[in-house]
């Protein structure tokens, strides 16, 4: 039941805001309250309402097609829902008191996107999954194309077509799987019972993988991303990169790996190569960027490359690290976007060339930035460290002949991440104050609050990551059992 | 005569009509070719009607008026053809009044 509640709160909020015609200031406050309610419900589901009955919901939906409204919160769903509600809360708090054109529609679209993303995270029916997958895309299209930058129209068009194309492949795969099930059902349990040959697995794997690879994005399917991140309004970008890319990872973890484990092993080398190549490639590009948002976008591609490589490492350590990283990456990148937004708004530029010397007069902002940037490069005692530690550990234990290549090349990303992150800090904050930022940058209370929450999460989970591990331990075990190559080959 | 001969004759007439439709640009002649195609079909229907009659007669099956449906179909086709021609010619006349030509190459309004 509580899962339905999680979906209904933002949905009702979105509907209400679409119809709302009143005071602008009320809108942001209402959205903030709504996000707090969501977060509270999420928290309650963690601590009080955590019986299996509360955490799942099934209702007839398209019964003639064999699809039902089946939602369930497992370990993966928990951590991603937690990320979604937390990220929305932080973002809405940060946006409080901000003047946005047509705020009601803006927040309504954001909330609708939240519905879509939560739906994707919780759906246990493949058609429902697809439905939410597309539902999440539509608000993003409108947000980017109506509130975006100068080149927003071609960029969002590309974004939409690209991701949509990917998901069409996935739909073909879903329909094929449904036709193969014994009871002609879209439910994940029925799909799991299908015995697929290796060849079937192989091409179904690619149908699904393309969709997820574009969403993630994995090199070389990434070109929509920097443009979209750059042109979207930064709050939208932050949701895109903090929460939305997790849809692709969820796709890998819930649909791709457990359904096609043999194919995942067979194509694992190819995908891992793409992923680690993407890490290095994106890092190289990040080192060259002058635009702050583009830089963060490429760094995000590099991080996602690591996560994707971890998904195909096919061992429990990597899964565990990946699941933690889902949350921590979301929080950290959200922090980066919020800071980028602050810098852009207060100095009027995003160019590293024209920024400089902010640390001289705005130490508070600098401290926040440095902490979050260091979390982004996974320094120990920040939250990302444990995730990346386990991820790399898992990658080195990949059941592949090239495990050490993947680990070393992927590891170069650690070095390059330091290079571009420190370059960014140096260009923005150090040196003499530049013309764009002659005066101290003052932060409003709610902005500081949002940043404090982020930094608090970074430090808390950096020092004591065990709650995140416990939350996802069962899921990673289950996933590993489903994809354990040695036992799979022993069986067949 | 074997029914095949009628079949081939009808096909030949029909194909000539098709070729006419494809090669001519005068709307009226195209229209006439369509009439020709209709008549080819009519001829075939009548031939099959006769065939069915003969079959029934040879097998001494006691049906009233075997093969009569085919002839009635031809009748109805003629009715419809007549109606079609009246409307079609009216359209051609109207077109001619508007564009002073019956050349179908000028009738590319479907593009827009």
């Amino acid at each position, binding site marked *: 039941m509580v899962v339905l509640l999680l979906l209904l709160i933002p949905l009702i909020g979105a509907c209400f805001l679409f119809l709302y015609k009143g005071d602008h200031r009320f809108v942001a406050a209402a959205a903030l309250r709504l996000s707090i309610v969501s977060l509270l419900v999420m928290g309650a589901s963690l601590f009080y309402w955590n019986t299996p009955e509360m955490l799942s919901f099934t209702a007839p939906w398209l019964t003639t097609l064999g699809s039902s409204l089946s939602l369930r919160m497992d370990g993966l769903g928990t951590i991603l829902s937690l990320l979604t509600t937390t990220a929305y809360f932080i973002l809405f708090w940060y946006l409080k008191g901000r003047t946005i054109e047509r705020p009601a529609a803006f927040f309504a679209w954001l909330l609708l996107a939240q519905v879509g993303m939560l739906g994707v995270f919780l759906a246990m029916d493949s058609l429902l999954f697809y439905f939410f997958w597309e539902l999440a895309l539509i608000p993003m299209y409108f947000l980017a194309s109506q509130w975006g930058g100068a080149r927003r129209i071609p960029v969002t068009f*590309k974004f939409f*077509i*690209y991701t949509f194309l990917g998901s069409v492949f996935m739909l073909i795969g879903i329909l094929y799987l449904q036709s193969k099930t014994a009871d002609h059902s879209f439910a994940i349990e029925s799909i799991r019972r299908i015995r697929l040959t290796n060849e079937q697995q192989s091409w179904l794997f690619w149908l699904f993988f393309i969709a997820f690879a574009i969403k993630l994005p994995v090199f*070389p399917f*990434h*070109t*929509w991303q920097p443009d979209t991140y750059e042109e979207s309004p930064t709050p939208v970008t932050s949701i895109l990169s903090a929460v939305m890319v997790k849809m692709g990872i969820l796709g890998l973890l819930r649909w791709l790996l457990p359904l096609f484990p043999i194919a995942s092993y067979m194509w694992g080398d190819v995908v891992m190569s793409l992923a680690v190549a993407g890490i290095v*490639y994106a890092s*190289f*590009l990040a*080192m*060259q960027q002058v635009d702050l948002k583009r830089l963060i976008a490429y760094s995000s591609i590099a991080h996602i490359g690591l996560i994707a490589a971890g998904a195909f490492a096919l061992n*429990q*350590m990597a899964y*565990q690290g990946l699941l933690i990283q889902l949350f921590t990456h979301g929080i950290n990148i959200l922090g980066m976007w919020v800071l980028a937004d602050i810098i852009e708004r207060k100095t009027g530029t995003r160019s590293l060339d024209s920024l400089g010397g902010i*640390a*001289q007069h705005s*130490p508070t902002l600098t401290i926040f930035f440095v902490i979050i940037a*260091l979390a982004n490069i996974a*320094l*120990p*005692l920040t939250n990302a*460290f*444990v995730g990346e*530690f*386990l991820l*790399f*550990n898992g990658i*080195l*234990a990949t059941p592949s002949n090239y495990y050490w290549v993947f*680990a*070393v090349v992927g*590891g*170069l990303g*650690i*070095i390059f991440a*330091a*290079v571009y992150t*420190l*370059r960014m800090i*140096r260009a923005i*904050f*150090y*040196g*003499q104050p530049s013309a764009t930022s002659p005066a101290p940058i003052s932060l409003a209370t709610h902005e500081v609050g949002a940043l404090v929450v982020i930094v608090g999460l970074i430090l808390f989970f950096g020092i*004591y*990551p*065990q709650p995140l*591990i416990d939350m996802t*331990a069962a899921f*990673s075990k289950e996933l590993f059992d489903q994809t354990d190559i040695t036992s799979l080959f022993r069986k067949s | 005569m074997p029914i095949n001969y009628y079949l081939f004759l009808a096909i030949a007439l029909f194909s000539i009509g098709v070729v006419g439709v*494809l090669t001519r*640009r005068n709307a009226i002649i195209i229209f006439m070719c369509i009439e020709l195609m209709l008549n080819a079909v009519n001829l075939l229907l009548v031939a099959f009607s006769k065939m069915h009659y003969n079959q029934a007669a040879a097998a001494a099956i006691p049906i009233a008026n075997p093969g009569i449906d085919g002839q009635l179909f031809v009748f109805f086709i003629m009715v419809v053809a007549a109606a079609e021609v009246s409307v079609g010619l009216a359209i051609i006349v109207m077109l001619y009044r508007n564009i002073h030509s019956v050349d*179908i*190459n000028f*009738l*590319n*309004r*479907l*593009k827009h």
Partner: protein
Amino acid sequence: MQSSFQLAFLIPLLPLIGFLINGLGRNWLSKQWSGLIGAGTILGSFLISLFIFQAVKAGQGEVISYFDFIRMEGLRIPFAFQIDALSSLFLLIITGIGFLIHVYSISYMHEESSTSFARYFSYLNLFVFSMLLLVLGSNYVVLFIGWEGVGLCSYLLIGFWIKNQQYTKAANKAFIMNRIGDLAFLLAIFWLIIKTGSASFQEVFDFIQANQGTSKFSVTDITIVTLLLFIGATGKSAQLPLYTWLPDAMAGPTPVSALIHAATMVTAGIYMIARSNIIYSLAPLTLSIISWIGLATAFLAATIALRQYDIKKVLAYSTVSQLGFMFLALGSGAYIAAVFHVLTHAFFKALLFLGSGSVIHAMGGEQDIRKMGGLSGKLKITYATFLIGCLAIAGLPPLSGFFSKDAILLSAFLHQPLQYGIALFTAFLTAFYMFRLLFLTFHGSFRGTPEQQAHLHESPALMTIPLVILAILSVAGGWIGIPAVLLQDADWLGNFLAPVLGSTTHEVSHATEWLLMSLSVGGVLLTIGFAWFLFRHYRATESRGILRFFENKWYVDQLYDRVIVQPIFYLGRILKEWVEPRIIDALVNGVGKTVQLAGRQIRFLQSGQIGSYVLLMVMAMVVVLLVQFFIRK
């Protein structure tokens, strides 16, 4: 658990609290309070360390676990401290010398605004905290946490004067170079975890000792792990090929240099390898690589130091060189000698850096020794202590450097006589450049501006007292490890560290030992005399030939720039300017363009001409009929 061990958590916690107070209260705290908090917390840690040291001396070490950092199926990494002889000794070095540097800093940094004064002390405390975490950790992960923390703090402190982009560049360089080593270190940890299922020192060592050479942990595994760990150590401890950050790290305030070079940071690599001595003892190949790299670094850095004119640069290269000596000792299997040298080096290098800080302070920020000279008259205490430091580093008895360096040379001699020869020569070079520095700075005539001359003064007590204490330690610090040949049963340090590092018994006759000692002492004395002859009166000379090569630091920075930095930069440019927009994105857009183009072509079929529609229809009919009647049959 011994009662004093229960306080162990306070040792790193106090500096952390100091960091938080100074960091968060930087806008409200006065300079006195910041300094007091900064130095006081370290003093507290030092006192507790003393207690713990006493307890360790009395009994055995202990592992204290606080909570589980990572706990999952098949892997448990506790947040635990290991207290034994090695870590308690390092605790003393870090907190003791750290405290002196803190005290010194209060005076040295007094010109900063109170905000950045507090910021400075918070960083300093964080630095000490990280280093304490590093030596206290009972497993590689906690060690790594401290390891990275040290890197971060060095980054923050090297770039402390953030206005100067040259300094921040040096900070970036330090952090990135360290990261290269960190990657190797991480890979080693992963390898250990995968193979042994644990990261705790004790479990890992037990496992390896039990399974070495079997398929569970083959000889290759040992070599790979030890090599990777060593690469990690080269980053942190500034060895070839990752040493170039350390001389640049002089950009930071001078006490920070003292902290980095003496008490913290660079000794981390030595500590880590000494800690892992059980694995290293099983890897002779790695050991010989370590000894050669250490020796090469020692020699290279010493030659560079010959022709440097920045007072801090000379000291920096001498640090690199001394670290090379320590690695030589490690590579020769003389772990105790290495740790001994860490200890004595901490004393005299801290002394030398703080002394140079005192000189720079007196000179109003001037660091070029060509513009100094004759300072011995005005800066008496500084001169005296600096002289002691130079004598100690040159290795003259009975100063501390003599004993530790002698232990290293002896082990090198036993291990590989060729290495001994080079090491001895390098030791002479050390004496030479150090006394060149001393003579150029304190002797001869003053070569600076008149204003500087007027400004010359001895530093305040807060700065000189640490100098005096360190000078005493530099003299006496070596007496805890006097070899048996000089004094029977005086090798207290060796006995103390033996449970952790294993005892070293030399199979060498006393006569040989006497010979080696007199060789090095005699050589050093001659070298000092030579330096006195050359540099008593400074004449500016153009470097030529090999000296020019040394002055330009063997062109290593330029080489790295050409071979690594520039290619990466240009590759990035190519990727950004060409590959991304013209290949990958062009492919993507190309697919879109193709569809558009195809649409445009197909649109011609939709001509609106009835004729063509009919034609197509007939064709389609033909095709359908063909399929229907001929193909499907």
